[in-house]
């Protein structure tokens, strides 16, 4: 049986505004799927449609080969971008209640909730009301609320927004553990660089349309564009603009965009005329560079 979530041809309009236009999305088991794009691209709307909160104007959401039902959806977990918890509920009460909404009985829900709170380092706070927790703790409770019932499919909308580095690391581990156990996961983000190393397959959307879709490594390999990274600042006048242009200069050095078929060695030599280079590499485009390439082509078309 095909254990995956498939969104097929979903379109959604709000009044005159087209929010999603014929979007496909596949979330196979065992892989981290990224639904990426700038704010306002339609990511949250698509997630709401996946969960049946919104009924799309066109298109279907399929789970394991047939249209997803409410019962299917009760087995999924959702962490919305807009975080919300009952502030005056006790942590454990809230998690057990949500587990029961997902169909667990009280005993199972309590066991799972306690286990998760243990993992999240919140075991000693289970009797506290949520309002008494710090922002970081509340975020961990939010994650627990999405996972308390052991979902087959986990949908995380902008999961890294506003997290401290420790929480980012923790969440990354949760994500990879979830997919390593053969379950399904899709996360959305507008911070492409943040999820670059995490996502194995991506769907890039912009203004409601899919602009790039596929395996991250393949997409990078297929891109005709290459970048030369050197550890010194590069003055644009050192380079032949037909062969190489300066992309970005930061504290780590410079990313130089190479024209297709340009010889990286010649460009490196052009820089070495002016500066001594200690470290350099020829790299595939980053996710945000792929996005810019894709939307640039798209807009020109």
């Amino acid at each position, binding site marked *: 049986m095909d254990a995956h979530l498939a969104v097929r041809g979903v379109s959604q*309009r709000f009044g005159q505004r087209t929010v999603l236009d014929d979007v496909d999305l596949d979330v196979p088991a065992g892989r981290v799927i990224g639904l990426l794009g700038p704010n306002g691209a339609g990511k949250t709307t698509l997630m709401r449609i996946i969960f049946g909160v*919104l009924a799309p104007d066109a298109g279907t959401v399929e789970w394991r080969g047939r249209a997803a039902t409410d019962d299917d959806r*009760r087995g999924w977990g*959702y962490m919305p971008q807009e975080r*919300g918890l*009952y*502030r005056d*509920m006790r942590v454990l*009460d809230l998690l057990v209640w949500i587990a029961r909404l997902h169909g667990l009985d009280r005993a199972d829900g309590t066991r799972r909730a306690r286990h998760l709170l243990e993992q999240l380092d919140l075991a000693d706070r289970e009797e506290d009301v949520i309002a008494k927790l710090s922002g970081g703790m509340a975020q961990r409770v939010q994650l627990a609320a999405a996972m308390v019932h052991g979902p087959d499919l986990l949908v995380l909308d902008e999961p890294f927004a506003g997290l401290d580095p420790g929480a980012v690391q923790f969440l990354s581990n949760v994500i990879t553990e979830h997919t390593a156990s053969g379950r399904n996961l899709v996360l959305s983000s507008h911070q492409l660089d943040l999820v670059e190393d995490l996502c194995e397959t991506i769907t890039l959307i912009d203004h409601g349309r899919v602009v790039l879709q596929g395996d991250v490594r393949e997409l990078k390999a297929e891109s005709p564009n290459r970048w030369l990274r050197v550890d010194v600042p590069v003055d644009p006048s050192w380079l032949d603009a037909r062969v190489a242009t300066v992309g970005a200069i930061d504290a780590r050095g410079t990313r130089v965009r190479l024209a297709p078929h340009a010889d990286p060695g010649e460009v490196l030599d052009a820089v070495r005329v002016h500066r001594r280079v200690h470290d350099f590499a020829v790299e595939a485009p980053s996710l945000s560079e792929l996005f810019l390439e894709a939307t640039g082509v798209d807009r020109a078309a």
Partner: protein
Amino acid sequence: MRARATALVANRELREAFRRRSLWVVFLVLLVGSSALMIVPELLDEDTTRYDVVMVEGAATTPPAGFEAAVRAGARSVDSDARFRSVASEARARALVDDDRADVAVVPDGQPVVVIRSGGDETLLAIVQQALQRATLEGNLGALGLDAGEVDEALRAPSVRVEQVAVDDSDREAAAAILSLVLYLVLLMLMIQAANGVAIEKANRISEVLLAVVRPGALLFGKVIGVALVGSAALAVAALPVLVKAAAGGDLPAGLGPALGGGIAWIVLGLVLYLTIAGALGALVERQEEAGSVLTPLSILLVATYVLAQSTAGTTLGAVLAIFPLTSPIVMPTRIALGEASTAEMVASLALGVATVVVVLRLGAAIYRRGIVQTGRKLSITEALRSP
């Protein structure tokens, strides 16, 4: 599954409500207030009028035998009681009556004198006169040689029961006033609680998490049921002293019993109608603080209903309001308390009410479903209904 989700949402509402100290304070206030309403009238009410009758001792003749018994019997027939005392002189007796320290003085004599304040109690005067006559007659018949049994036989007359035609309705009016006030306050409080609850869920985005698991209808009705149960618990607390008093055989204000018993259907109707509308309206707001303003039309309707329930008693408008679905939950129990509601009215009112509940549940769910997912600004009802 939907019923289970609704039950879980209602269950959370109840658990969290009972965890709040403020609810227990409300319960305590209701219990104390209701108990006071039941007990205080008992303490103040002297139940039966007591007539103070002054007899003059050592007058020329003693009062006829049987006079006191006859007065007591007469007083009993009008739910009253008589207390006798003796004073030494006629002057003293007159002074007591004059000072309002006694109701009547009797100077037994060959020609007995009854002293009463001018404008005094005519019933009492009649009782005393009749008792004097009867006692005198008994004495005379005895003197003619009849024994006590024969005297009784001769004097036996059918006992007369006096009925007053202008029935005192103040009890029923008090019951109706208390009932409509309590219903009004409970509906107002719960309606605000339902709208606030939904608004908080929307503003804090808890609804985002919940809607992924629970259908909007279950979320709305679960809350309505939960809040209504909390309200019913409050009403039950308020009714407890009434029930205790009834069980103990105490006097209840006339009409309160039937209104509580027969009014339950309309109380349930009112809770479902008002809370569903309030919950749906709560889903239109963007911030929790707007929940009050979005309820304003409903609050005004409720206040008007409360005021009209009292003032339209006995009018055609009152009968119409008792049938109209949004006013019937308060007006009908009030009319039942006043003893004005006819069976036909009740059937029509209930049928229309139930039909309205069906419509309101559907409409409320539709508004709620659309309102709860649209954030950014306050929506109007028409906007919510028009959106996808």
